[in-house]
């Protein structure tokens, strides 16, 4: 768990994962709390936990659990789209009085890129190649799923662009019609007004 970042103790930090449906996402995290006395991050802080919340693109909550200071969570997406993974500590101390910050180590894996290392350790050449081939097949499936999702998104993109195009065309026509009709109404109204005021 190499990459880390800092957040305030009561802050919520979210990351976005835009993934196709039926994709397994596994996350590993480790959280440490800053100790004011030691001026360093504690290796383990008792009672410190993290709320992990995963929201699907339709707003439905897929996962909402409290984990310990170190944990692994996973979820499988039902819909394609932007899934939001949020972290918030369960600390009840106020940030002002505690003056504390948290260090979160994070590693997120999307799609099944896991290698079953135990099978490879068996010194059977054929088995090792089998395992590698299975892993490659999983990777190809992931690529195919992403491609399908990409087609959906590009279609949505194209529809938005075409909608903008026709909106502009209708707007140009509507504007011309409004301009002409308002112009005619103005002239008529003023003419009637001047005639009634006996100026013309």
């Amino acid at each position, binding site marked *: 768990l190499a990459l880390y*970042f800092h957040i305030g103790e009561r802050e919520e930090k979210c990351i976005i994962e835009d993934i196709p449906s039926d994709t397994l996402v596994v996350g590993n995290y480790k959280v440490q709390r800053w100790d004011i006395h030691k001026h360093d991050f504690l290796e383990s802080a008792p009672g410190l936990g993290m709320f992990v919340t995963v929201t699907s693109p339709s707003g439905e909550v897929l996962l909402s659990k409290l984990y310990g200071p170190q944990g692994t969570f996973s979820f499988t997406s039902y819909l394609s789209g932007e899934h939001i993974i949020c972290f918030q500590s369960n600390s009840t101390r106020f940030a002002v009085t505690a003056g504390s910050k948290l260090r979160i180590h994070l*590693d997120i894996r999307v799609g099944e890129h896991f290698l079953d290392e135990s099978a490879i*350790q068996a010194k059977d050449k054929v088995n090792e190649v089998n395992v*590698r081939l299975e892993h490659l097949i999983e990777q190809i499936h992931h690529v195919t799923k992403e491609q399908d999702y990409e087609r959906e998104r590009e279609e949505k993109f194209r529809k938005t662009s075409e909608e903008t195009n026709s909106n502009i065309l209708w707007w140009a026509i509507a504007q011309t019609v409004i301009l002409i009709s308002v112009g005619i109404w103005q002239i008529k109204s003023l003419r009637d007004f001047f005639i009634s005021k006996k100026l013309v």
Partner: protein
Amino acid sequence: MFLRGTAGPWGWLTLLLVACAAWASEITFELPDNAKQCFYEEIVQGTKCTLEFQVITGGHYDVDCRLEGPDGAVLYKEMKKQYDSFTFTASRNGTYKFCFSNEFSTFTHKTVYFDFQVGEDPPLFPSENRATALTQMESACVSIHEALKSVIDYQTHFRLREAQGRSRAEDLNTRVAYWSIGEAIILLVVSIGQVFLLKSFFSDKRTTTTHVAS
């Protein structure tokens, strides 16, 4: 890296050594306006690392990026960049820090994607305990693996570009909608207002002329 199953003690050791050699983290996060977000990573000297980032949504699709070494030396600094890729070799052991800043923006928040690759990927068939060279099957596996990695890489780039394009198209669509409605309202209000204003000029003049006459 998620390791499962049981193996002999030496197996775990070699696995651990191999696993520490390479790491890739890619995260997409939202950077609010006037905010700065930093990420840290501990890197061993001599490791070749690559930082790549792209702004997906928000404003002019640009962000400031800064990469510092353990002694505070600035390795990479760019202002208002949309996309960039930076490769470096760690000259010392220590914690490297890279920050993305949206402090120049007053009200647009940005979605930023970055990919930080540390070290090279471990070889598929490690050459520690081999007697012979790779068999044909194994070398075929290796070339397919390399090709697939490159496919996944291109796919990610394409996905990000498409997300950026779609974000721009949706922005354009909303702006056109608001502009059409706004202009229609302004047109009607101004033209009707003009007529009534003109009418009011002539009505006032009438009363003042009659007033002066008497």
